[in-house]
């Protein structure tokens, strides 16, 4: 057998094969009635894993994980079953060991990740569950001999690819050969050959060290772990150092009547944040100029664009290398969270449990941003002759806590073949955050005039109160009914609208147990599930949005009457009737297994319908203190199907081969986006793009996918080249008008999300790989649309680089609304490939177990998309921090 897996399972608190964690408890796998995915240790993605989302990418259908870029600690955007909202938050609720906190958990401490996908499973979390729920269970200790695990990884990260910009020679050829450029432009060209992207990136080193101890202190099972991650970013000067600690104590007292679970997690992070503006600057900076300027030290020896009179050119891009090296932005982030759960099974009625679950989540972050006095970036913040550079502080902290009190009655009534599991719960959740406001200082610590903030800090607080009830009833191990009801009240809404009901009902039918298939059948399990539930959403809504208020303008926004300047009392926009977004969702699923579970899987179909949809929309001018407002305005649906399949083609002593395939289809559509349906409604523009102030490329409109691209239809010449400024006159009125001649073309959301994982063990060798594919997703190439033109290359006494697309299109002016820039971004990615060798016993020490591994992440990407990465959340490709390819070697030692 696979020795590693056995050890990990022995460490577990619950046997994963039989018990599934659900909201507020766990149930036998056979009693599961909703759409739930569980991914446990042996299935996690491996390699240089720095957060839990990387471990589960591609591992279960309907869970889409999109990296936020390669910046250390930047995480991912997680979406479960497509979209459920337009403008409200859609992140799933994260619950760690029963505590609803989004704090960082060291992946080495995680035993399993469970995702509640359908509303019936998630509705128990009520108003925070529309984006789905992710339950993280951490590893726990067991009584017995102390076990030590030591895990060490060393990684190298490298840039995979650069944005295709003109080389210095291409640049010179283009400027010299195009009639667009005048003599001044030609005279400004330098003689250097600088690849600015190469200048800002590097090969970065990451080390990740973890040690854990588990066992018992007397009768108290414990697990203690400490981790240290030092991750350098591929962008020069980017670095993160994070120390994490976690402790769990799980004593059981009074002949198992009293169970206490204590979980504590802490992290201390120090970041040096590189100026990510350098990424865009490196694409835009003229390649014919050199990094350094030997003659002038105004900008710390770096070349910058100056005008004829010697003053810095305010419109030109800044030297990207200087942007990195002349800024020091260091932040410290401390966070601690944990909870204690006390569960008492009454002595006189042991089937009834009374429990209290109390938790806290506190954190603070402080930091300083310094810019050298010679930094071009801050050269013209204030008068160049007085204030130079920057030395600014920032800090904030937050303090969240919750208390939940629960009654749980569990009873097997064998006489009527029934099992009852019922809970009643009261919960109180309070989130409070404070951001401190500071004046600005120059590098020499001189206060910049009028930068004193009007308010010393800003505090935000919101509170949620909940009442929950649930019954799980199982009859004859064949039929399971789950029904739950939650009532949530939120301080984010006015008294009339703040309470909401969130019910759910689900049925499970274990068909295998009906005996229809006989005993000898190849069918080893078969279960039908059906569920319906309503979840709510309030995230993404600012606190206090329903209250009419006035605030004072800050010190640079005063208005003069007479000789005095008055701070202005400004009315805020508000919506008195703001309320919950509600998502109703139905799910039908079938779980099956054949040949003693050598082939197993599940199929689910679902239909989600969101009403009172929150969207930022143009409101009729004159109705509020703004022209765009977040309000409950529409509805949308998502329909989809999911398939999960597992195979074990080979299983023997020496060889085991497992394969997992998953596929999810989703189609989301906006069904309403207007208080009064009107055919003349053109939709709500969204998706701001770079290179055009206030311009957008996407549209939210009825009967369309969310964020569909709204573009003109490009006209091409006989050779298939786009003709500048030529678009199809779609309504045939002889003019090219917005809306009238634009059409909705594709969307950023994939129709299909596919995952494939396989694991092959041969004796002591273990080989694994994970692949993912998205199909049907489109991307707007904003880098090409903004920088693939000649116009930007020479303006006002400076030159700027362009992407090589300009050599093909020969566009002079921006054609940002052209469908030419909306490209198919379907892709197949190999996320991970790796090999592990289990050395086993080290020398003569019997209780030791050592394994060595080597992994590569971001191995390959097959796509037709022209930009750097086809996978960018939201479908607008701007200057992303590239995800590096990572080579990792690791050592894992147990004793």
């Amino acid at each position: 057998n696979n020795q590693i897996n056995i050890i990990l399972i022995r460490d577990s608190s619950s046997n994963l094969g039989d018990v599934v964690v659900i909201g507020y408890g766990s149930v036998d796998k056979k009693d599961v009635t909703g759409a739930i995915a569980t991914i446990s240790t042996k299935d996690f993605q491996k390699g240089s894993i720095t957060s839990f989302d990387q471990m589960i990418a591609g591992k279960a259908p309907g869970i889409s994980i999109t990296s936020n870029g390669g910046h250390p600690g930047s995480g991912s955007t997680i979406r479960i079953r497509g979209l459920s909202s337009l403008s409200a938050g859609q992140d799933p609720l994260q619950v760690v060991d029963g505590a609803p906190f989004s704090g960082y958990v060291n992946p080495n401490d995680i035993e399993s990740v469970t995702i509640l996908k359908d509303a019936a499973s998630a509705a128990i979390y009520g108003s925070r569950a529309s984006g789905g729920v992710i339950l993280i269970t951490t590893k726990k200790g067991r009584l017995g001999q102390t076990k030590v695990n030591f895990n060490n990884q060393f990684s190298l990260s490298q840039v995979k690819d650069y944005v295709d910009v003109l080389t210095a020679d291409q640049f010179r050829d283009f400027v010299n050969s195009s009639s667009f450029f005048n003599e001044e432009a030609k005279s400004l060209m330098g003689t250097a050959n600088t690849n600015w992207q190469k200048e800002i990136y590097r090969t970065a080193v990451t080390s990740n060290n973890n040690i854990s101890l588990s066992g018992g202190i007397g009768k108290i099972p414990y697990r203690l772990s400490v981790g240290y991650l030092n991750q350098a970013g591929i962008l020069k000067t980017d670095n993160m150092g994070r120390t994490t600690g976690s402790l769990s104590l799980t004593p059981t007292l009074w002949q198992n009547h009293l169970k206490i679970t204590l979980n504590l997690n802490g992290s201390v992070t120090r970041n040096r944040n590189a100026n990510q503006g350098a990424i865009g600057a490196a694409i835009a900076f003229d390649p014919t100029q050199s990094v350094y300027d030997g003659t002038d030290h105004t900008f710390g020896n770096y070349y910058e664009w100056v005008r004829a009179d010697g003053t810095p050119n305010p419109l030109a891009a800044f030297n990207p290398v200087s942007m990195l090296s002349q800024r020091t932005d260091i932040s410290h982030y401390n966070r601690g969270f944990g909870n204690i759960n006390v569960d008492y099974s009454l002595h006189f009625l042991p089937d009834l449990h009374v429990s209290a679950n109390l938790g806290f989540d506190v954190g603070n972050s402080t930091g300083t941003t310094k810019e050298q006095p010679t930094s071009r970036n801050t050269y013209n913040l204030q008068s160049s002759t007085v204030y130079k550079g920057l030395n600014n502080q920032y800090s904030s902290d937050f303090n969240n806590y919750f208390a939940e009190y629960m009654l749980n009655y569990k009873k097997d009534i064998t006489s009527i073949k029934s099992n009852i599991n019922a809970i009643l719960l009261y919960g109180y959740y309070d989130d409070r955050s404070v951001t401190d406001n500071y004046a600005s200082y120059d590098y020499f610590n001189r206060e910049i005039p009028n930068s004193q903030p009007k308010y010393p800090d800003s505090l935000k607080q919101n509170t949620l109160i909940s009442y929950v009830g649930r019954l799980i009833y199982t009859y004859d191990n064949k039929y399971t009914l789950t029904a739950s009801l939650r009532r949530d009240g939120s301080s984010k809404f006015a008294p009339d609208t703040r309470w909401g009901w969130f019910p759910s009902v689900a049925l499970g039918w274990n068909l295998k147990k009906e005996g229809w298939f006989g005993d000898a059948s190849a069918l080893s399990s078969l279960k039908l599930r059906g569920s319906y539930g309503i979840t709510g959403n309030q995230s993404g809504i600012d606190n206090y949005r329903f209250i009419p208020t006035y605030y004072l303008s800050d010190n640079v926004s005063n208005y003069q009457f007479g000789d005095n300047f008055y701070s202005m009392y400004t009315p805020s926009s508000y919506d008195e009737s703001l309320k919950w977004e509600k998502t109703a969702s139905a799910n039908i699923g079938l779980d099956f297994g054949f040949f003693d579970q050598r082939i197993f899987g599940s199929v689910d179909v679902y239909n989600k319908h969101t009403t009172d949809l929150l969207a930022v929309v143009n409101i009729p001018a004159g109705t509020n203190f703004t022209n765009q407002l977040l309000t409950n305005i529409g509805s949308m649906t998502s329909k989809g199907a999911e398939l999960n399949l597992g195979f074990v083609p080979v299983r023997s002593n020496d060889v085991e081969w497992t394969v997992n395939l998953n596929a999810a289809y989703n189609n989301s559509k906006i069904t309403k986006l207007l208080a009064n349906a009107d055919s003349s409604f053109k939709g709500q523009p969204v998706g701001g793009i770079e290179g055009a102030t206030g311009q957008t490329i996407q549209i939210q409109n009825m009967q369309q996918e969310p964020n569909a691209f709204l573009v003109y239809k490009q006209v091409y010449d006989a050779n298939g080249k786009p003709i500048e400024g030529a678009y199809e006159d779609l309504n045939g009125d002889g003019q090219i008008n917005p809306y009238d001649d634009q059409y909705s073309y594709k969307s950023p959301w994939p129709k299909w999300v596919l995952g494939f994982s396989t694991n092959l063990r041969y004796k002591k060798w273990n080989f694994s790989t994970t692949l993912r594919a998205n199909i049907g997703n489109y991307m707007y190439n904003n880098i090409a649309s903004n920088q693939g033109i000649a116009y930007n290359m020479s303006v006002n006494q400076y030159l700027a680089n362009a992407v090589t697309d300009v050599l093909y299109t020969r566009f002079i002016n921006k054609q940002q609304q052209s469908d030419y820039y909306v490209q198919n971004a379907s892709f197949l990615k190999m996320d991970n490939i790796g090999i592990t060798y289990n050395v086993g016993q080290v020398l003569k020490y019997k209780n030791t177990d050592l394994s060595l591994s080597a992994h590569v992440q971001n191995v390959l990407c097959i796509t037709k998309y022209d930009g750097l990465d086809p996978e960018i959340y939201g479908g607008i490709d701007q200057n992303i921090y590239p995800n590096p390819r990572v080579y990792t070697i690791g050592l894992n030692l147990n004793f």
Partner: protein
Amino acid sequence: KKLDRMPINTTSNTDVFSTIDGTKQALAKVYGAFALTGSSGSGSSDLGGIDAGTSDFLRLYWNAQELPTDEALCAWGDPGIPDLNEISWTSGNLLLNGLYNRCIYQITVANSFIRETENVPASFSDEDKENLTHFRAEARFVRAYQYWVLMDLFGNPPFTDENSKIGKIAPPQIKRADLFTYIESELKAIEPDLVAPKQNEYGRADQAADWALLARLYLNAAVYTGTDHYTDAITYSEKVINSGYSLDTHYNDLFLADNNVNNPETILSINYDGNETQNYGGTTFLVNACIDGSTGDGPDAYGVPAGGWGGIRARSPLPKLFGDDYTASKDKRAALMLGTEYDITNTTTFAEGVKVIKFRNTNSDGSLPANASTFVSTDFPLFRLAEQYLIYAEAVLRGGTGGDKATAISYINKLRERAYGNTSGNVANITLPFILDERARELYYEGFRRTDLIRFGEFTGSAYIWPWKGGIKDGTSVADKYNLFPIPASDVAANPDNLTQNPGYGN
């Protein structure tokens, strides 16, 4: 009750309006919405869907009034700008959308000020009550001004007043002629409640501002309603002229950073300050957009050492109003221009075209305001005496009664005597075409040109062709629909039951 969480750092309307000081700070926002994009620094905006730095009133208004005319051309390719340069805008134009929403935003703020101050707090002294009366009249003046802008540019905007509830109820549309009547009645109704001419604090409207707007309204009445009001224009411009204002001896001082000090001519201004009132529009835009690093003596010389965005310069007809070689003109108003490259062959090349450096961030003694960098301290005149002289003269020529031509000529010669420094530029007779030219010589780059050309019937069609009119270097005729801007498509979409698009425009 644990769910009743209240914000800190904000105040309820009851608190704001319970004291006269709080009320005055709320009035500061009614006016400040002219000058600032938002209340939290130059990066903040009261509006969405437009870049914050572009979302102030003056920058947008100026672009709409000047770029489509023979006075100015902007080199930038930012969305919306080429359409204005070439008179080819659509209902999707971002800058027009921003301007429309900015005007209506300021009206909404004024509406709420008027509504909130309806009941006078019992604690107010007699002096407080008198001040409150003035405040309320001024808020109504600001609202009337913005309705005038909407009427002049967009014709038929949505209408709200102090009785309109904040929420989501869609306002009805008002017809141009009805809006004219409303503005006229408002300006007349508030007249007794406003402070007498020159008696109010700097930066606040008085009766002279009220009369000045009435005079402007009446001069253009035929455009708005089809019925002329030249006699009324004479009546009200004369009231302004006789209310104690006088021409500033030095024309160029009107456009400098210390133009808030000892300025006898400006009746009402939008006030800016490089330190206290910062934004990227307003006069900061007017100074920076008109120069770049190679203009004249460089950005330092114009008070913006860190600025100079190189965008806007004159089309050739403007300098030529001062003679074929304007540099030889004795008219000092021409001395605020620079360069002799009249022709613009490529709209995107800032180097081409005569530069206009009318607004500067320097003081009248040549010094720079404290901490001069990018932001400008120069105030922008919304109303100044010179315009009233020109209104009087034009209304007389157009047949208004109550004035006479001799007085009209004497008013014009006052402007010309200041321009020439002596009587050498004086005229013996005036005609309507002369008035149009004289208005351009006196008021160029102050946001009048589009309205003036429309009043003279020369904006659209082929009566007058100037370079790049209609997007062609030598100019071409444009359709008459361009005399009105379109209602922004986004608002027609948001308020479809009430809003009808102006003729000739698609949504």
